[in-house]
C-alpha cells in the first residue's frame, strides 16, 4: 500500500519536501494554515544574492509539484497523535488524516521589532522593518519615506532581535546581514544620490557570492558600513530619525540623521508552533528552535521515529539552504519508510 506523509507548513521547505516525496512515490498531503502556499516568500520581493524574484521562485517551486499532492490550505493543525505505527493529524476545521510519517516544515516568525522599544518601531513613522521594505519594493511605487520624500539618507540596523541578550535571543538569524547588503544596494539603485549606512556588529557573509555582493556594496555603491550597535533612535520635527550609534572602529559616538531607518528583523521560532512540538514531546532547545536527533548525522530526524523536520523550524536558514534541507528530509523519510 502507498505510504502517506503529512507535511505541515507550505513555505519553501514544505513545498519542496512534498514535491520530492511525491516524486519518490509517496502519497503526500501538504497542510497550510494560511489561504495560500508560499509562506514568507510571498512577501519577499527579491532574494539575495541573485535578486531573483520571491514570487517567481515560489511559482517555480509550485510548478514542480506533482498533481497528486493534496494541498490542504486554511487549516491550522491542532493535534498530532502517535497511534501504534501511524500518526493522526487533525486541524481546527475538522480535517483529519492518518499518516505513516509527518514532516514539520512550520518555518519561522519574523522577530517583532516593537520589542526593541529603543528603536521606535511602531512609534516613529520612518522606522520600518526589512519585511516592510520588501513590501515597498514589491509595490513598484516610487521609493519615498512616510512623509512622501525621497530620503537623503537611509540607515540599516543589523541584528534586530538576533544575537541580543536583551530580547533573550542569542542566536544569529543568518540571513539578515546579506539581506541588508542586498536591500542597501536596491535603495542605492533607486536613489543613487542617497547616503546609505549599515550599522553592524560583524558581517557574516557565509554564503556563496555574499562576500562579492558586500564588496560591490562598498566599492560600486559606496554604502557605508559602520561597526556599532544603535543605542536609540528618536524623531525630529520633520519626521527624520536621529540615531545614536557608536563607531567602534573609530572609537567615537555618532549621531546621524536619516530619512528612513530599516530594522533587519531576525527569525524566531513561532510560539504557535510550540504547541505542536509540545504535543509530540519534541525538544525546543535554548534558542527555541526544534532540536534534530543529531545536528551532523541526522539533521532531519527528531527523537520521535516518523517525525521529521526541514527548513527554518530547526534554525534560521537562507532559502537555498532551506530547499536543500527539504530535499534531504524527503530522502530521510524514504529511508525510514523503506
Amino acid at each position, binding site marked *: 500500500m502507498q505510504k502517506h506523509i503529512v507535511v505541515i507548513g507550505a513555505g519553501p521547505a514544505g513545498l519542496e519536501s512534498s514535491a520530492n516525496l511525491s516524486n519518490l512515490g509517496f502519497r503526500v498531503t501538504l497542510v497550510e494554515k494560511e489561504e495560500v502556499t508560499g509562506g514568507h516568500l510571498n512577501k519577499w520581493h527579491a532574494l539575495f544574492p541573485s535578486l531573483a524574484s520571491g514570487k517567481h521562485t515560489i511559482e517555480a517551486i509550485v510548478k514542480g509539484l506533482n498533481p497528486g499532492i493534496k494541498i490542504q490550505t486554511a487549516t491550522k493543525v491542532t493535534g498530532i497523535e502517535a497511534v501504534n505505527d501511524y500518526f493522526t493529524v487533525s486541524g481546527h476545521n475538522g480535517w483529519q488524516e492518518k499518516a505513516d510519517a509527518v514532516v514539520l516544515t512550520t518555518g519561522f516568525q519574523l522577530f517583532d521589532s*516593537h520589542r526593541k522599544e529603543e528603536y521606535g518601531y511602531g*512609534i516613529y*513613522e520612518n522606522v520600518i522593518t526589512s519585511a516592510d521594505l520588501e513590501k515597498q519594493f514589491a509595490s513598484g511605487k516610487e521609493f519615498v519615506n512616510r512623509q512622501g520624500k525621497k530620503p537623503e539618507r537611509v540607515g540599516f540596523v543589523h541584528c534586530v532581535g538576533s544575537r541580543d541578550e536583551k530580547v533573550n535571543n542569542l542566536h544569529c538569524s543568518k540571513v539578515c546581514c546579506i539581506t541588508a547588503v542586498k536591500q542597501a544596494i536596491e535603495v542605492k539603485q533607486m536613489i543613487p544620490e542617497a547616503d546609505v549606512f549599515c550599522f553592524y556588529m560583524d558581517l557574516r557573509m557565509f554564503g556563496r557570492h555574499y562576500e562579492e555582493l558586500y564588496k560591490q556594496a562598498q566599492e560600486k555603491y559606496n554604502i557605508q558600513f559602520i561597526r556599532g550597535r544603535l543605542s*536609540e533612535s*528618536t*524623531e525630529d520635527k520633520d519626521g527624520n530619525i536621529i540615531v545614536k550609534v557608536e563607531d567602534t572602529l573609530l572609537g567615537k559616538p555618532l549621531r546621524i540623521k536619516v530619512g528612513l531607518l530599516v530594522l533587519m528583523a531576525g527569525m524566531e521560532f513561532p510560539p504557535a508552533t510550540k504547541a505542536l512540538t509540545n504535543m509530540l514531546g519534541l525538544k525546543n532547545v535554548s534558542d527555541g528552535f526544534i532540536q534534530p536527533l543529531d545536528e551532523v548525522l541526522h539533521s532531519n530526524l527528531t527523537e520521535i521515529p516518523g517525525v521529521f523536520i526541514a527548513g527554518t523550524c530547526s534554525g534560521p536558514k537562507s532559502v537555498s539552504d532551506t530547499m536543500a534541507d527539504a530535499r534531504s528530509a524527503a530522502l530521510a523519510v524514504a529511508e525510514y519508510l523503506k
Partner: protein
Amino acid sequence: MKLEGKRLIWQEYQKEIADDHYFYARSCIRQTFFPGAEAVFVKIMKDELGKDIHDEQHHTSCTGIGYHADVVPFDTTMTVIARQFALMTEAGYENYAASCVTSFGLYTEVLETWHHFPEKEAQVREFLYKATGREFNKPKNLAHASDIVYKFRHQIAAKAKYKLIDKNTGEPLKVVEHIGCHYSKMFPHKGIGGAEYPYVLSGMIEAWGGEVIDYPERRHCCGFGFRQYIVQANRGFSLSCSKKKFDSMEPYQPDMIITNCPGCPMFLDRWQYALSEMEGKTYGKNNNGIPVFTYEEVAGMIMGYDPWKIGLQLHQVSAEPLLDKIGIPYDPLSKFKGKNGEDLGIPETPNYLKFYAD
C-alpha cells in the same frame, strides 16, 4: 510620531500602586533644591485626596548618592535601607512611598537583590539587628511619589482650578517631560510606561490639559548624573548634557519642563542661568528661560495654591510668564517675603535671563 504605538507600550508597563496608607520617605536634597515640592505632595495627599500619609521624621539618606559615587558599599546601603523599612514597620505601614527617584531605584534594587539572593536578606537582617536591635517587614507596595500622583491624576484634575492651557488661545501648553534615570531605566517594569517611553509624567500632563513634546534628546541625561557633577572636573560635561537637551527641545518652543527626580529640575533650571551667563543664550521668548518644575509643584499650581507658598520664587528660571499664560494669580510684591511677611531680600539679578523682582 504615532501615539497609538506608545499607548501599546504603556499598556505593558503598568504597576500596582497602593490606594492609601503610605509611609513617606523624603529626599536628602529636594528640600533644599525645591523646598515646596514635598510639602505640596503631603498637602495634596492629605487635604485634597483624604489619604493617610505618614511623614517620617527619623529616616536617613538611603545612601544613594554615595552608593552610585562608589563611596558607600552595597552591604552598608542595604542595611541603611533595612532601617528605613524597620521605621515603616514600627509606624504600622506597609506601603512605602519614596520622594526621591534614586532612592526608589535603590529600594527596588535592594528588594530585587533579596528576591534573588535570600541569603543576602538574612545577612542584612542580622546586621541591622546587631547594630540597632531593629527588625523589619519588607514593603508590600513600593512606589515613587510620582506614581502616586499619577494614580490620582484624574482626581487632582477634577479638583484643579486651572489647566495646562494658554488662557488666551485655549491651546494646550507644550510640555517637556523628563524622567529621572533611576525611575525606570534600571527596572523598566517598575516604572509606569517603562524606560524608553515613560508615561508617569506624560499621563499627568495629558490629564491636566497639556500636550507632551517628544524631541530628539528626550532620553538624554539632564546633566546631573552623579559622576558628572560630583566630580568637579566633569562639570563641563554636566553642563553640555543640559545644553544638548535645551538645543534639541528649543525648536518645539516648550512652555515648561516637568520632572520627577531631585537632580533633574535643579540642573535643568540652574544650568539655564549658567548657559545664559556664559553665552548670552536663553531658551524662552523675550530672554525668558523655559521654566522647570517638579510634578508636585505643577499639581500645586493647577490646584491654585499660592505660587510663592509652594516655593516657585526659588527657581532660577522665573515662573511668572507661565503663571500669566495659564492665568494663575500671584502677588509680585510678596515673592521674596518669608514666613510672617519677613523680607528675605532680592537675589542678584542675572545679566541675561529675565528676572522678575516686583
